[in-house]
């Protein structure tokens, strides 16, 4: 598979995503500078974490206008897989590829720690290797991960099983005390209606190797690779829950 990893000024998880897909999962990776407007024959696009444009104004607000994002939109519209991690998720929100917006963490602090998330929808290109309801330990590292959207949109997300990950306790309880940033409904990750675009705040690429003490994140990344292996790119249709 050929995975494209976007590089914005200020991206800083780009090398991590390259490393995990290339060196850990043995896939082909192409780094894509934000000024490029063509993406030759990619199977999936990853928008990595970091501080694109220094997080100035609002996280993701400026990156969204980078030339490459137009191409990413088209890629997504044709059913291409797009994974946005952390700042990548924030960019997808600002770009309108996913609904909602991010507020400052309830604590106002940047938080870097392990969190537990429950797989709410195991029938997506990004979670195929997970059991429904499976609890994964995945670290977060952000200051603006406090997901917000209006009640109507939220209801829609829930109804269409677009909420893919929710923060939970170690034993899978979705509870306030497990919510690290104040996210609405403990939301940690959502997909678009068609199911080919996922945004998540936790960092699966940071926990995909045993040497790092945790390989849970690998499930998400291998899900993508497996999905792509099974499904020819253009045939991705909506994914019912």
């Amino acid at each position: 598979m050929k995975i494209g990893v976007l590089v914005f000024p200020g991206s800083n998880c780009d090398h991590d995503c390259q490393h995990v897909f290339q060196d850990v999962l043995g896939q082909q990776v192409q780094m894509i500078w934000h000024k490029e407007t063509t993406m030759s024959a990619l199977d999936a696009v990853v928008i990595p974490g970091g501080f694109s444009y220094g997080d100035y104004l609002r996280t993701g607000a400026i990156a969204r206008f980078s030339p490459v994002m137009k191409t990413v939109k088209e890629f997504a519209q044709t059913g291409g897989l797009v994974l946005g991690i952390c700042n990548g998720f924030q960019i997808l929100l600002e770009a309108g590829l996913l609904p909602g917006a991010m507020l400052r963490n309830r604590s106002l602090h940047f938080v870097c720690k392990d969190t537990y998330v429950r797989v709410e929808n195991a029938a997506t290109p990004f979670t195929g290797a997970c059991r429904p309801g499976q609890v994964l330990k995945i670290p977060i590292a952000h200051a603006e991960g406090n997901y917000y959207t209006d009640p109507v949109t939220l209801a829609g997300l829930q109804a269409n099983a677009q909420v893919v990950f929710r923060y939970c306790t170690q034993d899978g309880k979705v509870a306030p005390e497990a919510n690290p940033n104040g996210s609405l409904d403990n939301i940690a990750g959502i997909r678009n209606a068609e199911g080919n675009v996922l945004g998540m705040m936790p960092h699966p690429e940071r926990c995909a190797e045993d040497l790092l003490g945790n390989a849970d994140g690998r499930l998400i990344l291998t899900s993508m690779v497996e999905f792509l292996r099974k499904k020819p790119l253009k045939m991705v249709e909506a994914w019912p829950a």
Partner: protein
Amino acid sequence: MKAKIHVTLKQGILDPQGKAIEHALDSLGFKNTENVRVGKYMELDVKETDKAKAEAQVKSMCEKLLANTIIEEYRYELQ
């Protein structure tokens, strides 16, 4: 012309920063303050003499970039 732009969180959207400041003020002994809301204030120069044109431009800058209308509202003055 100089544009002065205020971007604030929409009513009803929780403002963690405002809450924190309110709490801090309280513990500093300013017990009689409430409803603290924090927003952004931007000043910039638009090299445009036609007021209407400038207005239109600032509006579209807000819509496009300066405010996220899902959570924020904006207002601006021009001088």
